[in-house]
């Protein structure tokens, strides 16, 4: 992801994302309801209903990447929200109370729709935001799949999707359009297919595309999934990846090792990490995070299929499943080692990593390392400590 090696498509993405925020602002002006949603959320239902879905987590990631998470968080902290909370939530809450908006003003919700597959922080953040903005809040509740997916939880989710459809109908004053939903689901399928083909190119040796590129190019699959824009974008990116392959342009100059990385990156240090890995000839090739957007919907059973896709995500799975998933990725991408990020912000993904590290090492024989930091807040980032840990890990690779 070094500067000179940047993808041409990056320009297109910047345009697309600027457009996304502009559309949100415009929606507000034109009286189109803005619905806050969470990253792992059946957003297809909203696009089909003509609502504008807004991702405050994306706002949080942006604040992290622009190194202002601390600044926004401190505003939340003066109110009594502590810095132990998820940094995305702190940034969102901080921005609500702040006078200065270093990443632009978070768009005010007309309604808040939250799915808790990912974590328990989102519902609590959305509840607080619902009180602040005085907007109705709806929780799509997804109990953890502890063993295998079962009918009970699936039916519960489907029932709630129906409840949500009624809730949306009340807001829009129109009967729900299931034909439109089919179209949106097909667009989502296509964008996810393209996105995963791009991600898969990281398995080639040497590879034209890696995890840090994926972090950079993932915003549209999160926010624009279900629209033609996402499809156009990932088609362009896919073409560029193919073109690079033909020309022999690779993600890093001298790829010697492939690495698995868990999970969200340290946003304000994205370049620092990618350079550090590249300097050691190590390409991070996969992460369950960037690979989460791999939905495949059955248009004939839209609600059931939405329920399966969204509840069976790794974020809603337990200890053993997650270990196996990581190992599967490691095998598929033929990695030489793995790095697990114990992210202080994200307890559901950090808790368990110490044991998982041991189990994965035992099962695969691969070297691995766990480091502690925060995905957005540099107050919890010790460059020396992280560097020392990773250097030791790189030594084990060779």
């Amino acid at each position, binding site marked *: 992801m070094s500067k000179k090696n940047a993808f041409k498509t990056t320009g297109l993405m910047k345009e697309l994302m600027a457009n996304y925020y502009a559309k949100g602002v415009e929606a507000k002006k034109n009286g189109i309801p803005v619905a806050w949603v969470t990253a792992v959320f059946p957003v297809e239902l909203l696009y089909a209903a003509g609502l504008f879905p807004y991702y405050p987590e994306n706002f949080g990631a942006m604040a992290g990447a622009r190194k202002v998470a601390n600044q926004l968080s401190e505003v939340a902290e003066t*109110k*009594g*929200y*502590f810095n*132990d*909370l*998820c940094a995305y*939530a702190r940034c969102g809450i901080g921005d609500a109370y702040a006078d200065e908006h270093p990443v632009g003003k978070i768009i005010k919700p007309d309604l808040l729709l939250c799915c*808790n597959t990912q*974590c*328990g*922080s989102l*519902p*609590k*953040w959305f*509840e*607080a935001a619902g*009180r602040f903005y005085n907007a109705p*809040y709806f*929780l799509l*509740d997804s*109990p*953890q799949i*502890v063993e295998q997916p079962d009918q*009970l*939880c699936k*039916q*519960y989710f489907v*029932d*709630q999707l129906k*409840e949500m459809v009624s809730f949306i109908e009340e807001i829009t004053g129109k009967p729900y359009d299931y034909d439109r939903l089919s179209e949106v689901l097909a667009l989502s399928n296509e964008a996810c297919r393209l996105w995963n083909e791009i991600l898969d190119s990281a398995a080639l040796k040497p590879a034209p595309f890696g995890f840090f590129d994926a972090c950079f190019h993932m915003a549209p699959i999160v926010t624009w999934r279900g629209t033609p824009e996402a499809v156009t974008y990932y088609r362009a990116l896919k073409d560029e990846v193919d073109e690079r392959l033909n020309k022999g342009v690779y993600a890093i100059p001298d790829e010697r090792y492939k690495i698995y990385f868990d999970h969200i990156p340290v946003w304000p240090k994205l370049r620092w990490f990618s350079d550090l890995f590249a300097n050691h000839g190590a390409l991070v090739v996969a992460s369950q995070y960037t690979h989460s957007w791999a939905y495949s919907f059955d248009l004939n059973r839209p609600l059931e299929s939405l329920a399966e896709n969204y509840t069976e995500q790794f974020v809603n799975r*337990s*200890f*053993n499943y997650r270990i196996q998933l990581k190992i599967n990725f490691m095998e598929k991408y033929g990695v030489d080692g793995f790095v697990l990020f*114990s992210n*202080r912000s994200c*307890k*559901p993904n*950090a*808790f*368990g990593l*110490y*044991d998982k590290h041991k*189990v994965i090492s035992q099962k695969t024989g691969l070297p691995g390392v766990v480091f*502690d930091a925060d995905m957005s807040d540099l107050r919890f980032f010790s460059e020396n400590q992280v560097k020392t840990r990773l250097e030791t890990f790189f030594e084990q690779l060779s």
Partner: protein
Amino acid sequence: MITSQLISYFNETINDHDRFVEQWKRTSGGKVIGFLLTDVPEELIHAAGFFPYGICGSNVGQERVDAHLQNWACSLVRSSFALALQGRLDFLDGLIIPQTCDTTRMVSGIWKHARPLPLMENYLLPRQVDRPSARTYLVGELTRLKGRLENYRGTVITNDEISKSISLYNSNRKLLRRIFSLHEQNPECISNRNLYALIRAALIMPREILNDHLRQLVDALQQDCQSSSAAAQTRLIISGSVIEPLEILDYIDQAGGVVVGDDLQNGWRYIEADVRESGDPLEALADYQINRIPFAAYDTVSNPRRHFLVHLASQKQAQGVIFLHLKYCETENYDYYDNMQAFNKISIPTLRIETEFGGSSMGQLSTRVQAFMEMVGGEV
């Protein structure tokens, strides 16, 4: 027995609870199923013939947890897990973890990996309770859990068994509520500290033994507590997840405060309502859960927590509110600002205290409680 003897019996039992349970196990030959926090349907575990044992955290041994769980996990879960790692929960035959937050959700797999037990289950309670889907799902989840308990015991659990357990638990809650109201009327007769010690005892004692002693205590208290001393006391509400450390109640006692309500998992919230004794018992358990006092793990749309708290405070004529929060308890932290604001609006002073199992400084705690009590008491 007289009041003081009964109270010491309960205090000794909670101080020495490992020994108490081990002895119970030896004499009865029964099985003990542990649980975390208090939303787990104990009635169902009891109906299966097992003794539901509430794990309440501890003050020592947390460093053992570091290899498994980050030190920014809450100390209730860390110190409860520490007990298991130290071998101090070896009397357990099983464990049920209710998934109420990310920490409980994730520790379940870690616990099972590090200290497996013959029966390990999650209680996947719904985290929205306002829509019809929640009840249907919860009845299904209770049925699933019942199935797991049946597998473990080897026979079916009958509705009759569940109904009997529900009555037993109801009678226990009634006794504790009776003592709670005696405490409200006459805190000198049963102090804050002793009242909450009784509720803690309820988590770690078989109901049959517990109820027997509680009945004696109610009789003794009714004799001892003829007059009312409540008028001279400052009325307080405590809001938080669990009461920790118990010493805070001593400080409130010393400063002339009486706790008249709470939304704590091991306080009033644990005993406040009964389970319906008619109709389908699993449906009754589901309705009970759905209508419980809101807590941080889920705020309800129809009865938001801050409204509940404000209502409780005005109903109980509380003069002050203490937010007793465990460090790193995220769900409490998300609610704090708005709850605090809700009390500001009605001019009830609040104090937030952050504590940690095994990490609270008692001197500081005592000073802060005392200062707050002087401030609140001064306003009467």
